[in-house]
């Protein structure tokens, strides 16, 4: 406690003002209190922890599938179970791990990086988390009841319609997918408003950290990408339960409509996962090359360009569906164009690292691992962007290899690096460098052993989503190699998770800024106090801590006895007004529970929808009930004495 990283406990003794501030921003303790939390750090940590749990579950599913495929004619998994496993693996990783974990980091870090005490709508944050949790738990309950979805993570019709998928399996999938996107949408709105309106004075748009830029672009992408998939999955759900015919060709519906709507979401989804990872990489590379980034403006433009072009690629998932030639040519061109902003970013990072004396600690190692893996995934991406080649490898293991190179290389490696990097800020303790090196090399080697052979397997004709294969096709050796690789990769992840769990309790104390990094979150103690910043700082340059002149400019005048945040202008972050945030509240949970009544009830009867609607309205009234009527009126009293 005598170190410079004064945490919340030491601050209490230093002055009454901090004391009041601390109590104002405190989250209620204890188990019942857990359900009232609205603080962004609390919610962010929950998102991250829950998402990592889903990563482990999805990873185990992958390992079981790899065991099944390790030799021809294996009988570990029945065909039916295998279908459930690959569907759950894809659904878990895409919807319940990759997007939520990025949201978790964004929710935890954004206010700290922009110098705010919380996010713009704290209760909405909590609501988003409960929606995510309820959807995830409901999906896995269906798995253990033996009715997990089994039509693949993109659930193509007609396979996923009632006729070909009887029972409730795909009902569960369709309703839970609609439901969880709600969580992504509220987080997106929340992040956009927070980034645009709550930045500390001086942090004009062109001084925002690249991570914040990435989150801003991704949040906009979510607002345009998630609604179509919600509409589509809802259409699928009511086709199955209420007898509509959106996808039923016999009654005038259209099966390709599903593919269009799904991939209009599905392709941007890849960038929604990938762009936050780009932001993380920028932070790690700046810190460990110990210099300013090369090409800040091109990097920002590349993020924005990716955000736009990402919406013009969806048809390249549908080349084999028999679309007009002209359409395919257009999407081929667009799919190749997106290599330009990705390439721009990579060259900017290489230029940043070039000639610097990089500090090869685990976060940077994971970033460099990203370069190796992602560039390979990008190259195969350009290959399959061309129609003739894609027709050849469509639905083979080549595609499996490609998107694992893109997603694991492009998102999981940066994410592990970022976790190592921000772990001291979140927990106050350092992870072990030694374990970090081990986990990196195990993961890197294992990953390539597992997925590189799949390119070849696909080229020689092994289709994806088959539960087994016969002997004598020349696939045995490569499959066994892939299985061994998968286990080595898993060992790397296990080392990482164990290191995190151990370091959380007994790692060395980190201090405020263990990496000597440049962004604002490193100026406050680790872990940050309840109120994040004692004084809201005034930003003097693009690299907030490196550019600080020592004059310590800051904001005074925010009250300590209620949750006040400073609202600033969108472009230049000039102080504009004050916003008073709500404190701990039971309504986010009540609202999430009400909405789940509609969504989960829909599995049995449509009549639960109006019930859920009515309950949601009640929760909404409770949520919006003026604080002024129910709690101490701070400033209204003198204006409206009759109240």
């Amino acid at each position, binding site marked *: 406690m005598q170190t410079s990283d004064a945490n919340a406990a030491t601050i209490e003794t230093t002055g009454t003002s901090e004391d009041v501030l601390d109590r104002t921003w405190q989250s209620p303790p204890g188990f019942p209190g857990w359900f009232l939390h609205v603080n962004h750090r609390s919610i962010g940590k929950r998102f991250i922890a829950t998402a990592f749990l889903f990563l482990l579950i999805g990873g185990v599913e992958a390992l079981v599938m790899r065991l099944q495929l390790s030799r021809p004619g294996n009988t570990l998994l029945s065909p039916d179970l295998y279908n459930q496993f690959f569907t759950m693996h894809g659904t878990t990783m895409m919807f319940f791990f990759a997007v939520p974990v990025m949201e978790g980091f964004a929710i935890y870090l954004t206010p700290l990086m922009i110098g705010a005490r919380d996010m713009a709508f704290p209760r909405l944050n909590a609501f988003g988390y409960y929606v995510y949790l309820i959807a995830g738990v409901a999906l896995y309950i269906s798995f253990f009841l033996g009715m997990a979805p089994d039509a693949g993570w993109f659930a193509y019709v007609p396979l996923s319609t009632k006729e070909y998928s009887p029972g409730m399996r795909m009902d569960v999938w369709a309703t839970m997918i609609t439901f969880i996107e709600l969580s992504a949408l509220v987080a997106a709105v929340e992040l956009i408003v927070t980034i645009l309106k709550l930045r500390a004075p001086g942090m004009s748009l062109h001084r925002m950290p690249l991570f914040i830029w990435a989150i801003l672009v991704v949040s906009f992408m979510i607002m345009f990408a998630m609604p179509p998939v919600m*509409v589509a999955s809802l259409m699928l759900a009511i086709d199955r339960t209420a007898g509509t015919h959106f996808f039923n060709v016999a009654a005038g519906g259209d099966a390709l409509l599903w593919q269009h709507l799904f991939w209009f979401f599905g392709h941007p989804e890849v960038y929604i996962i990938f762009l936050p990872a780009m932001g993380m990489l920028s932070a790690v590379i700046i810190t460990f090359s110990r210099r300013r980034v090369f090409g800040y403006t091109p990097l920002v433009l590349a993020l924005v360009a990716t955000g736009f072009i990402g919406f013009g690629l969806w048809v390249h998932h549908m080349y084999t569906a028999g679309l007009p030639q002209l359409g395919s040519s257009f999407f081929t061109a667009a799919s190749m164009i997106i290599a330009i902003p990705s390439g721009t970013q990579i060259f900017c990072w290489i230029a940043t690292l070039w000639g610097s004396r990089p500090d090869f600690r685990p976060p940077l190692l994971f970033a460099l691992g990203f370069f190796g893996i992602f560039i390979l995934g990008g190259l195969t991406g350009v290959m399959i962007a061309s129609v003739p080649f894609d027709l050849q490898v469509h639905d083979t293991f080549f595609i499996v290899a490609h998107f694992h190179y893109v997603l694991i290389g492009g998102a999981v490696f940066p994410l592990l690096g970022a976790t190592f990097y921000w772990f001291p800020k979140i927990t106050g303790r350092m992870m072990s460098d030694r374990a970090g090196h081990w986990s990196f090399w195990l993961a890197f080697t294992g990953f390539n052993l597992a997925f590189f052979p799949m390119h070849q397997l696909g080229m020689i004709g092994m289709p994806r989503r088959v539960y087994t294969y016969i002997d004598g096709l020349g696939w045995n050796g490569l499959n066994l190699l892939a299985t061994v690789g998968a286990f080595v990769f898993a060992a790397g992840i296990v080392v990482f998770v164990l290191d995190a769990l151990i370091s959380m309790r007994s790692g060395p104390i980190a201090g405020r800024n263990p990496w000597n990094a440049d962004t604002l979150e490193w100026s406050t103690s680790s872990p940050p106090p309840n109120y994040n910043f004692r004084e809201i700082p005034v930003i003097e340059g693009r690299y907030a801590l490196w550019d600080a002149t020592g004059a310590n400019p800051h904001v005074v005048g925010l009250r300590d006895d209620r949750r006040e945040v400073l609202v600033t202008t969108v472009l230049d972050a000039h102080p504009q007004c004050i916003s008073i945030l709500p404190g701990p509240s039971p309504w986010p949970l009540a609202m999430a529970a009400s909405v789940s009544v509609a969504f989960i009830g829909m599995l049995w009867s449509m009549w639960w929808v109006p019930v859920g609607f009515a309950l949601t309205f009640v929760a909404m009234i409770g949520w919006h009930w003026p604080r002024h009527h129910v709690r101490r009126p701070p400033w209204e009293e003198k204006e409206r004495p009759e109240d």
Partner: protein
Amino acid sequence: MSANSNPNIIDVSGLSPFNHGSQAPLWWGFIGMIIIESTVIATLIASYLYLKMGSISWPPAGTDAPDLLLPTINTVVLLASSVSMHWADSSIERGQQRQLTYGLIISILLAMVFLAVKAYEYSHLDYDWSTHSYGSIVWGISIFHATHVLSLVLKTVFVLYLELRGYFNRQRRLGVTVNGMYWHFVVAVWVPLYLVLYWSPRIL
């Protein structure tokens, strides 16, 4: 405050906690919600046109093209509710409580007329959502929009209740503003939906 003499310190204690319009984070939050809902509407319209494109006749043989008279009158009713809501909205900016109350009540009544006419119209159709894909998308879009109008009514009743309890005044009117914004949005998106549902089968 003595700190004011220091050029490195920004004193914000004079800034208002009452923020209006685009200053307020809540206003931006509603813009976000409107963007999301617009994307939903655009997806529904795209799906309607996609299904229409793939059909030989639209509406399918045996189903008549929708009637125009009643829906058009009903559209005018809904548009009128936006006018009364705007009146309510601008009254509170001038601090006119009574006009706000009346404006809210008129808007609620007009929206309820819209819903009643809608219910009448749909209960007299000779097809429903399970008849064919045309029925699915038409009923789907209508129920989606009607649910929004219903939630507008419910929310505005809540705003009206707060108004009658004297919660709003010239300064504290953000709740009225964002409720009005959302009202105008739901009314405005009805216009393209009306054109698609009632005119596109005839002229496209």
